[in-house]
């Protein structure tokens, strides 16, 4: 399953990457945001560190913030970012 993945703020800097296409390995129609996060975390280094369980990050699917158990539509735009601090 192909996904467009975006990173913002501290995560963008830590990963050295603003966006990429990710092929979610072995994904079925019920693949979730948690599956994507697990695959990214397996890259090790900053990925393992920033996306570790218990770290505060947020996931948006097609521009709506979701829980990690949200199912990912094909070709979804998924964004991963720190808690927001605007205003």
């Amino acid at each position: 399953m192909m996904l467009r993945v975006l990173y913002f703020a501290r995560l963008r800097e830590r990963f050295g990457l603003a966006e990429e296409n990710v092929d979610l390995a072995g994904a079925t129609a019920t693949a979730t945001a948690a599956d994507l996060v697990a695959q990214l975390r397996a890259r090790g280094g900053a990925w393992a560190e920033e996306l570790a369980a218990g770290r505060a990050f947020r996931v948006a699917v097609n521009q709506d913030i979701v829980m990690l158990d949200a199912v990912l539509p094909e070709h979804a735009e998924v964004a991963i970012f720190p808690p927001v601090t605007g205003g």
Partner: protein
Amino acid sequence: MVKAGLMKIVVQTEAFDLGAEVDAMRNGRTDIGAIASFVGLARDMNEGSGVQAMTLEHYPGMTEKALAALVEEAATRWALLDVTVIHRVGRLLPGDPIVLVAVASSHRGAAFAACEYIMDALKTRAPFWKKEETPEGERWVDARVSDDAAAARWSA
């Protein structure tokens, strides 16, 4: 729901003009009894450190969508006649205005409540991030527990 055309949501690098925005809301209308507005400004101090400048990053596309959702929620809770939200991005100096929320209603209770609701919700749900320049170097601002608490009040 806020009537079509009676909700203005803008993300911009330029400064905004509070007086002009509020005048645009009330111009030619005689049904508005109350306009509550809020301006958030960049301060020279945060978490005990001097702040020389800050840079605001956002998520284009989602930002506008998230702000529109907050405004629609407010319009479901209170009888609103018009809402304007302007949020700046890019590099800002201490004293610079960051965000403007203005809410028009027939009555002041609704205008005050909706304006504060939108600000509280924006702080926890609109995709903006602040990076501060301090004498100790650059740092990303951490989300505040007090902002989560302020937003959670409204669902009590």
